[in-house]
């Protein structure tokens, strides 16, 4: 056997071992998934756990099917998804604008520094009740809740990325007599795009928290409302079903943002 064919053979073996490894990973992922739901179902049937509290996959599935067929679940889904998307877009945009203002004026950023630290440390959901009193028990409060939870951390992360842009890029622009605005537009903002997009990924998760908590506090519609309603009437099948839908949609949104990130970072 020549060296060449030997290397070919080894490469084939290597590729095969990679595929095999991947298959095993998938296998165990599916095993975990099935075990979880099967155990849950069995435990519930045999009353190892209280079926009234923990419900069971079959009951959740029945309820979900019923709600999809009569269409009653969709308004709840759209409300929550809409609020979350709006919340996280507002949070990210506002955070980026705030970061730009801080970058613009180093003096202002020094003044505001301790306030940012305090606001960042404060659990944002704690001001939920105040928001609702101030803005009224409407969708606005919930969207604001979804935005406010991510705005400060976005400001801090994006501002840091603005400041960390290689000063030599600015030097290049300044030698052409660029104004501060031109520096921002040509160098600071585009080089921070990857950071902004990666904060989007964090903010999707945060906005779900804000919106669901907002809906807990006040709402007539939405997945958070269904959870709190199910809790009040002791219908935990409804709670589980809503939780299940939230997991699905949160994952979809996260994956979407991840996809956008890949596109943007590749071009950068």
């Amino acid at each position, binding site marked *: 056997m020549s060296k060449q064919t030997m290397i070919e053979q080894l490469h084939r073996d290597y590729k095969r071992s990679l595929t095999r490894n991947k298959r095993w990973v998938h296998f165990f992922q599916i095993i975990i998934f099935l075990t979880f739901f099967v155990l849950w179902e069995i435990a519930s049937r045999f009353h190892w756990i209280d079926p009234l509290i923990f419900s069971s996959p079959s009951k959740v599935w029945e309820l979900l099917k019923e709600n999809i067929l009569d269409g009653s679940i969709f308004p709840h889904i759209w409300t929550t998804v809409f609020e979350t998307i709006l919340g996280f877009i507002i949070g990210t945009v506002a955070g980026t604008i705030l970061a730009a203002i801080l970058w613009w004026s180093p003096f202002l950023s020094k003044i505001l520094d301790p306030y940012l630290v305090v606001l960042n440390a404060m659990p944002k959901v704690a001001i939920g009740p105040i928001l609702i009193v101030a803005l009224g028990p409407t969708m606005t409060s919930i969207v604001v809740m979804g935005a406010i939870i991510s705005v400060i951390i976005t400001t801090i992360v994006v501002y840091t990325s603005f400041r960390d842009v*290689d000063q030599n890029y600015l030097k*290049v622009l*300044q*030698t052409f*007599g*660029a104004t501060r605005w031109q520096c921002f537009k*040509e160098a600071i903002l585009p*080089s921070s795009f990857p950071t902004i997009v990666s904060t989007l990924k964090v903010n999707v998760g945060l906005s779900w928290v804000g919106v669901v908590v907002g809906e807990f506090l006040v709402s007539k519609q939405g997945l958070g409302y269904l959870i709190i309603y199910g809790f009040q009437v002791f219908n935990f099948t409804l709670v589980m079903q809503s939780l299940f839908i939230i997991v699905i949609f949160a994952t979809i949104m996260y994956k979407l943002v991840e996809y956008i990130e890949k596109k943007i970072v590749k*071009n950068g």
Partner: protein
Amino acid sequence: MSFLEIQDVTHSYFSKQSKTTALIDVSLSIQEGEFISFLGPSGCGKTTLLSIISGLIEPTIGHVLLENEKVTGTNKKTGYMLQQDYLFPWKTIEENIFIGLKLTKQLNEKTKQNTITLLEKMGLKNVSKQFPSQLSGGMRQRVALVRTLATNPKLLLLDEPFSALDFQTKLKLEDLVFSTLKQFQKTAILVTHDIGEAIAMSDRIYLFTNRPGTVHRVFHVPDELRREIPFHARSHEQYSDIFQEIWKELEELEQTNDD
């Protein structure tokens, strides 16, 4: 009056803990069309002096006159080329070389065409739509040179523009930069710590002392060397004489520093 006059420039950097004097009493004058090198150890304030000449920073004391006008901020007469190319990775080559024209509001069909022609003269055809990451280090530095020349500055400041390149690319680029600048009759100041590069490229060499930096000695490169392109200058018989002379001077400088 000379093209560029540097008059008693002293510059200090201030911080809470300390004050660092980077330059002290630097005076020199440069005629139009000359190629000058600032040679000296790292940290001798060469880059500071370039920044002062370009108007990026204002000297603590003294001033710079360019064509009899006091330099008070960046201006169209001066182009600056940095140690690395610093091409914007998210812009295409075309957008990168047009940036100076765009910022100075001179971007039109004619200037665009001129810049593209210059790019092609540098041996870079069909790269306008590519991104910097697709180009090699030498190609990128050539693009950076085109970007600097696009706004047609009279004075070029070159801050160790070849130091990040491999030796072969560096020699080739030295020739290219040298002949391009001679062709367009630009005045140029090259900052370097490479003695050979300074001799091969320039008409005059200012040797700087270490911090605080000031002109220690001026070397005039012999006419025979000045006429040659850098690659040939390096193999000229007079090259090693002046190299030895500067080398000795630098050694002595270091010894006085150590004492």
